[in-house]
């Protein structure tokens, strides 16, 4: 296990964490502001990826594809909020779960109806493909570095939006007391649609960025969604900062656990069995992490509600 390999794995963990953050940020924003559990967030990730793949296939431009992913996911999010979600704010969480689960099925089968059952093609643009050599002789794919950079930019943008702009103040106020800000003359209905669309756009962006190195297929959002929920539980529901730290923790734990746990088991077990046990435990690692965080801080690392 060389130092180069470890550095490379840490970068992989960061990159994975930052992509998780894009998903978790929207999820935590929507939960924090509107108190809504949105299981269909993974479907918006899928919508972003499919829109990007379709536009990239038609025009050949990756930038246009990203723009399309943002627009399509935001539009889908706004539409869903206006047609379905709006009726659920006052409902019990179980009703929200049921309704948004139905949305997952509708999105999945709808996407299959439009694009067919086979995965779509979306590739990295030529100028970002291939590896670059980092200081220390580490070969690392350029595109993954770009993903890390893009994710950090989005995180900074979100921080700026929530702390430095008028909309951000309204969002934070809405989190604390929705009746009060409505009484102050802020159109809360429009604010909710906006927040939902922002969350959806972030998920769509993540879907498009990740779709270029993964398989663009129906159901691609659900595995990410589960991890995104873990992230917001660890980070503290409703906290963007918590989502960022939580996402990095989950990304690093998942990646490094997958590498080191099998190696650890090899110290006292036979090779094949060691890798199998180690990887089984690695699959549980993030949930174990979540358990410990919740024992230590029941409302998550940055959770405000006790």
């Amino acid at each position, binding site marked *: 296990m060389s130092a180069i390999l470890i550095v490379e794995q840490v970068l992989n963990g960061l990159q994975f964490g930052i992509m998780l953050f894009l998903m978790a940020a929207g999820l935590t924003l929507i939960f924090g502001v509107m108190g809504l559990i949105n299981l269909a967030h993974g479907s918006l990730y899928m919508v972003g990826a499919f829109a990007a793949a379709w536009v990239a296939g038609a025009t050949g431009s990756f930038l246009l594809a990203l723009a399309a992913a943002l627009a399509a996911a935001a539009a889908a999010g706004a539409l869903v909020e206006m047609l379905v979600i709006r009726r659920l704010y006052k409902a019990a969480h179980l009703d929200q779960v049921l309704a948004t689960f139905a949305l997952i099925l509708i999105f999945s089968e709808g996407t299959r109806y439009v694009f067919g059952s086979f*995965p779509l093609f979306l590739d990295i643009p030529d100028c970002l493909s291939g590896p670059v050599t980092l200081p220390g002789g580490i070969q690392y794919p350029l595109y993954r570095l770009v993903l890390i950079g893009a994710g950090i930019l989005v995180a900074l943008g979100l921080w700026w939006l929530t702390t430095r702009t008028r909309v951000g103040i309204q969002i934070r106020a809405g989190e604390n007391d929705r009746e009060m800000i409505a009484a102050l003359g802020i159109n809360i209905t429009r604010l909710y649609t906006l927040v939902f669309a922002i969350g959806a756009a972030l998920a769509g962006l993540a879907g498009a960025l990740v779709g270029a*190195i993964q398989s663009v297929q129906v159901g691609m959002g659900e595995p990410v969604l589960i991890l995104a929920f873990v992230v917001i539980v660890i980070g503290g529901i409703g906290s963007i900062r918590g989502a960022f730290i939580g996402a990095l923790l989950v990304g690093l734990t998942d990646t490094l656990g997958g590498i080191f746990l099998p190696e650890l088991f090899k110290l006292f077990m036979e090779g094949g069995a060691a890798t199998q046990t180690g990887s089984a435990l690695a699959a549980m690692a993030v949930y174990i992490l979540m358990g410990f965080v919740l024992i230590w801080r029941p409302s998550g690392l940055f959770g405000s509600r006790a």
Partner: protein
Amino acid sequence: MKKAVLATAMAALMATPAAAEVKVGMITTLSGGGAGLGIDVRDGFMLAIKQSGRDDIEVVIEDDQRKPDIAVQLADKMVQSEKVDVLTGIIWSNLAMAVVPSVTAQGKFYLSPNAGPSPLAGKGCHQNYFNVAWQNDNLHEAAGAYANTAGYGNSFILAPNYPAGTDALTGYKRTFEGNVASEVYTQLGQTDYAAEIAQIRASGADSVFFFLPGGMGISFLKQYADSGVDLPVVGPAFSFDQGILQAVGDAALGVVNTSQWNKDIDNPVNAAFVEGFQAEYGRLPSLYASQGFDTANLLISAVEAADVSDADAFREALRAADFDSTRGDFAFGPNHHPIQTIYAREVVKEGDVFTNKIIGTALENHSDAYAAECKM
């Protein structure tokens, strides 16, 4: 979500429907992430039924959503209320393990168009269970054999951590004579392989064997191509079938994979199948489609030779496998799994379409490692 499709063969062509003599229950995956495979099997199967022009085979199709509990419910329904004679269609080994032992114990026939888990080929074999595709290990054993002929001496091997993944690495190691640099189990459904690719880079191997079916394979190949690691890759056909190659794109070009079928196998049945499938569905068939097509033709050959109500005669007719397969000669071994030739294929581009071309034979007339354990 319950999606029930009732397809009666030939219904459209008949004025007065005669009572179907054989009722077939097809349980397969038609929704969710793995739907492409089930759809191909179904389309291949129904093409053969349609081409036969028979009106005495009725097919009831249901979607298992890739969930074992749903597959079991559907099987119960098909056996008890639909009263089918023959079941088929299951794609995934875990679903097959949940359904096949119980339906064969109830005296029904099961023809597997895809899954071939090792217990059903060995100790758990059953006289009413026939596998028309392969035993799970077969294509991986062929990959190991190909790696020997290609001169690889040190392989990094990789599969998801579930029963078919373990079977895959076991199968490869059974035939591969070189050294295994490292053996890695990934999570089932994993989409990011950066960590594994870094391990490959650091491993000092001279080749990579991977079994990552469906979307997992697409993700792996795209990320591998972008990583700058240029070791040769070999794998079973499941990551290189017609349905997903277009989504992998250039990253798959030149990769060698092993399969019991390809569209350029030179026999008249196969040529007619490829042409007929394209004409009917407007796309190239995959190996799954060929397996569905062969399964239906095996069934038709048995229906012609024997009455399904006479189970012993019908079983003998199935065992004789007296039909023209898309793979050429087709025969069952003693455990009702195929004895067949497995080819090495290379991914090529024909015009705008990515597809496979046979470049050699990996294993000739190959059976499976479990046949000896089967006592029927």
